[in-house]
């Protein structure tokens, strides 16, 4: 037949747990994979968690073998610090343009010894740590981040802001730091695309009645995840802003749910996990969960809830009206479902906000001509029937890019996207 041979390479956008799983399966089947990741590391949101529900496994230990396998797989080309800026063509023949920021590190020479960080005179808030600790202008986001190769943040680096500093280069024994590197535009040809761009947490400062960013000791769940992390800003200690451990903590569910208009699937379990974890570290700390409906679907989650409840964590079914500051206390004012008003004094509040699509989803949607639903997640072709096929032939979605979900369902969708992708080409090759 005269028809042009279809390209078998695959572009995977987003290097979280879905992107990693999809890339590995495709590579093992013999496909060439380009994995485009906007940050400097792979593992996505999962590697921010010290432990994951419901079995309280160490998340980084769980993911590390997959990360290693990915980094060592000759069929996978990881493009970190990269962004897809244009896609043309159609299924079987997409032409993709990727913009890769210079890292200013020659990764062939870098051995990941981190000697370059110490002499860097710059200190700025570490985004990976939700700003709870400082980082340098040359950095990896946290200990254990993979690939273990730093990059230079040119917005804050003295050298790139007009001053004469080469402290990092002087400290490197392997001539791995190259200030002359340039951002690159890379053109790749692929036959299929899998979008696994994950989620971001809704910023609760938009809901002023919770006092987030106004009152100290009102934390977001992600901040607490980092406080709980042994490689985080406090090496795993949960502390108030005054450095003391909290005595009473209110965990508030469904923050932003009304505004967003959907249930984020995983927050109940994440709240239970945080309670479980803090109870283990601080057994005498009182923990009260404020919730309206517990969403703990499936065979595996209720037991975890019962264990947490049995461990002295209290549950109040109520809507939180407002959080106020009274001296050193935070007062949680709430309304129960019998319209009774009440309040509770605590010294720490944890807000568990909705999951939302990453801020740059709309931009990517335009580049890929991929429809987004009313909440901004990428839309599947046939809702309630298939989660991973899209209106555009040759482009699949998986994980939280499609909608909020847990790790189990995320991995299943990544595998499903690969299943459909390989199946379609098997059916075409006759």
């Amino acid at each position, binding site marked *: 037949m005269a028809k042009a041979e279809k390209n078998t390479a695959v572009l995977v956008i987003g290097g979280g747990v879905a992107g990693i799983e999809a890339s590995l399966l495709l590579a093992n089947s013999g496909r060439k994979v380009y994995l485009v990741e906007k940050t400097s590391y792979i593992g996505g949101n999962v590697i921010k968690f010290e432990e994951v529900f419901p079995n309280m496994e160490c998340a980084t230990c769980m993911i590390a073998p997959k990360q290693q396998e990915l980094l060592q797989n000759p069929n996978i080309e990881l493009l970190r610090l990269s962004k897809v800026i244009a896609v043309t063509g159609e299924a079987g023949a997409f032409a993709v343009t990727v913009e890769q920021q210079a890292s200013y590190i020659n990764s062939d020479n870098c051995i990941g010894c981190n000697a370059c960080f110490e002499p860097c005179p710059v200190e700025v808030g570490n985004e990976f740590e939700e700003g709870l600790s400082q980082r340098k202008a040359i950095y990896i986001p946290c200990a254990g981040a993979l690939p273990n190769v730093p990059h230079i943040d040119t917005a804050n680096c003295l050298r790139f802001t007009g001053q004469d500093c080469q402290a990092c280069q002087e400290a490197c024994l392997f001539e791995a730091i190259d200030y002359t590197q340039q951002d690159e535009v890379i053109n790749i040809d692929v036959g299929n695309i899998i979008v696994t761009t994950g989620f971001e947490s809704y910023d609760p400062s938009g809901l002023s009645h919770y006092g987030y960013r106004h009152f100290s000791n009102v934390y977001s769940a992600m901040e607490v995840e980092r406080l709980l992390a042994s490689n985080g800003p406090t090496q795993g200690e949960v502390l108030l802003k005054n450095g003391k451990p909290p005595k009473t903590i209110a965990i508030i569910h469904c923050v932003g749910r009304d505004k967003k208009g959907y249930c984020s699937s995983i927050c109940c379990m994440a709240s239970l996990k945080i309670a479980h974890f803090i109870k283990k570290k601080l057994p005498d700390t009182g923990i009260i969960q404020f919730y309206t409906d517990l969403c703990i679907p499936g065979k595996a989650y209720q037991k975890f809830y019962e264990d947490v409840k049995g461990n002295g964590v209290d549950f109040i079914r109520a809507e939180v009206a407002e959080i106020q500051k009274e001296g050193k206390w935070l007062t949680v004012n709430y309304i129960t479902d019998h319209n009774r008003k009440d309040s509770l004094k605590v010294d720490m509040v944890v807000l568990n906000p909705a999951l939302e699509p990453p801020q740059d989803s709309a931009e990517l949607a335009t580049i890929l001509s991929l429809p987004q639903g009313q909440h901004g997640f990428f839309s599947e072709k046939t809702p309630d029937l298939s989660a991973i096929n899209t209106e555009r032939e040759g482009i699949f979605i998986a994980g939280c890019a499609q909608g909020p979900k847990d790790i189990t369902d995320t991995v299943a969708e990544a595998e*499903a996207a690969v299943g459909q992708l390989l199946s379609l080409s098997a059916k075409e090759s006759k």
Partner: protein
Amino acid sequence: MTKIGVYVCECGNNIAGKIEIDEVLATVASLKNITVAEKYKLLCAGDGQEYLKDSIKEHELTHVVVAACSPKQHELTFMNVCQEAGLNPYLFQLVNIREQCAWTTPDTEEATLKAIRQIRAAINRVKYQQALEEREMECNPNVLVIGGGIAGIKASQVLASLHRKVYLIEKANSLGGNINKFASLYTTMEPGFSLIENEVRKVKQNKNIEVFTSSEVSEILGFLGNFEVKITTKAKEGELNFNVGAVVLATGFNLIELKDYPQYKYGSVDNIYSSLDFEVMNLPGGPTGGKIQLKNGQVPKSVAIIHCVGREERGYCSKVCCMYSFKFDRMIRAQLPESKIAHFYSDICIPGKTAQTFYEDTKKLGVDFIYSTKHEITGNGRGLLVNYQNGTGSNTPWPADMVILLPVMESSCDTKKFADMLNIPLDEKGFFAEEHQLLSPIASAVEGIYVIGCARGPQSIAESIVQAEASAGKILSSLVLDKKLKLEAKTCSISDVFCTGCQTCLDVCPYGAINYNEVKRICVVNEALCHGCGNCAAACPSGAAKLKHFTSRQLYQEVTGILRQ
């Protein structure tokens, strides 16, 4: 003759700055069988690898020890170098003197002594290492799918192609499973049978899917890539054998037996229905011709929908009941615009981006939601009463003409049969257990056997379909056409001389890789299934089971090398 080469990487200043490498080399060089002991500035770099390769060839080394960084970083790199130099990579040992010594032992003298001991341990060990071969195995690309519900149907469609045949086995006389009984599906409100009709047509048109209805699997033997299957089929009056490379279990769910929950009076009082009964009542071809009506033929003026029936007792949430109950509201409203409808619930579980809209639209239909627990149905001559507690003390029973119970979903009655047949574990709720709950949710603990849909826990239709596609993803990426399966080199073996046939190893093997040979009365490892975890070697009371590359002798020598002064 044993000729060992020892190479210490300076890792720039990382190792050289903390450890006296020359002292290490001098000590090591004096040990037995050491042909060469040298340092290099950065062994993992291109020139370092070339140097290592040339040195191995030049000295005709039989074993190699590299003292450098973590095996996570460069074990594979150096194993490849050995391979290229013509040395079996399993005759190589990496010593981590960076993370485990240079970076953690501040005193140079102590670090140097520690490094010497670590390297000595590796030298001791490497002498006893054996060349291992990474073997390959031919595999059969075909797939057996058990269960003809939506999950099994979809898996068959996605898997089948010209070079990959799918055998789809269903014990009932037609495909479609439970969805055939669903009067409508959320959120489209399309009838279940129209989905099934469409999908079954696609299956029938696919020449690469062979469907066996009224058929049961009687035996499955073998392992990933090579299963032998025996089925009994009523349609063709007899037994049939065929071979496949993988098995997909899509055996679905049952609702719990409501008679075990007497507080709901199911089966003993009229007009109390399970959700499935209610679906069937709404089928155009059902007993009432699709009409919602009471036993006496009249229409109900009030309908109570009871959520979470059996949830507390069973200990899990069935995930889909809230959503399909909102579908019931629409079905009732369509026929009975004036009836009262009340949900008795404790949690509304509607995860995901679209479900809440469906819920909110339900509330607009004039449906009451009564937060409550401890539901009990009582009946009197004229109707039913829903008794409940809501925490306020003022719980007047709610009179209902009709009660619909939303029972917990449990695994189908065939689950146990296949768990025993295939030696795959069940979880504590009686569903098939995953290989890893989070990272490998579709694979069972036995390689080549996958579990999808409600066989692995309550799922929605969309989730069941995703899992069907996911099983295809796993199978199509592992049983690749024209490609042999790579097998683990570091497997276990059991000595037939020392094995006493006690079968301790059978219980500890998580991969079902060990069989008991009834004739010889010994245990035998299937190396195609063994992942080399070593559980059997640790558990074997007679020392018959051993893990290649981690033999007792190798470990003993290694430990001695560390401990000896």
